[in-house]
């Protein structure tokens, strides 16, 4: 009985695999560049790019076929002499800020950075007022 159950569970777990292709990965999806300096450049860039299929992973971390194809783009473009900044710009021009896995200040993201600063300022203001008042109270009592 348990075996049947286990088999069923395995079958269930195997289902999503059907919706994947069977093609071999792109040439540079899992193959590093020969030049260690270029590979280091590519890796640093890949860690700052978001996988579009599995959105809480960078393309360096993801095994999704699309992440492999994106790594191929990064490595082959680096090999062709493009700079990491150019490749990043190329992707952002296609997918917007979303593809960036590194927080960047832009027209749409600035509130993320501004709000904490604002909150800290408000809290500091409140604290100064309160502590100031308490000191005054203490002074009155003395």
């Amino acid at each position, binding site marked *: 009985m348990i075996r049947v159950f286990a088999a069923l569970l395995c079958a269930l777990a195997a289902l999503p695999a*059907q*919706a*994947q*292709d*069977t*093609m071999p990965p*792109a*040439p540079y999806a899992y193959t590093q560049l020969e030049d260690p300096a270029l590979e280091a450049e590519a890796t640093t860039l890949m860690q700052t790019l978001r996988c*579009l*299929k599995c*959105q809480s992973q960078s393309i360096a971390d993801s095994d999704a*076929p*699309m992440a492999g*194809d*994106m790594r*191929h*783009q990064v490595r082959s473009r680096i090999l062709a002499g493009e700079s990491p900044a150019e490749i990043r710009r190329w*992707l*952002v*021009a*296609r*997918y*917007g800020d*979303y*593809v960036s896995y590194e927080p960047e200040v832009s027209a749409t993201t600035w509130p993320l950075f501004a709000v904490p600063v604002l909150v800290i300022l408000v809290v500091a203001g409140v604290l100064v007022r309160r502590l100031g008042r308490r000191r005054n109270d203490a002074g009155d009592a003395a």
Partner: protein
Amino acid sequence: MRSLYLWVPLALFAFFAGLAGYMLTQEKDQFVESTMIGQPLPAFALEPAFAGLPGASKADFTGGRPRLLNIWASWCLPCIAEAPQLEALKAQGAEIIGIAIRDRPEDVAAFLSRHGNPYARIGSDPISEVQLAIGSSGVPETFVIDAEGVIRYQHIGDIREADVPKLLAELEKAQ
């Protein structure tokens, strides 16, 4: 007045709890939209995806009239659901050029003989190169390309019956 202030944290908490509860009932939108709308198609030339139809290049999208660019794959389950709607679009005069992502010729041929072939051409994109170049983040997706080869509209996900008139209208708009 002071006692009123005491309620502020609770009110804030209730607000955030309510917001979280509300967001839980909302469908999660995981679509990443292309930011290439209004931009010309990048140059590309893809080999035929199988022996039955020619491949696809940027030149196939320029001249004459707007066309649909359908990003799909034989291994993609929603693409099966989409097939009849593509047929409907073709029946109503749309020219559909397909790009098959990470696909094999025999699988493409089998898919088309089983689910119908609404395509005028299908290019094979074995490493998602063109897909990435136009800002598409999955299969299936359908783009409206005007006669100058400029991307005018993106439909993400499978085309449902209700999307057919919308896509026809977008084709009309791209004239």
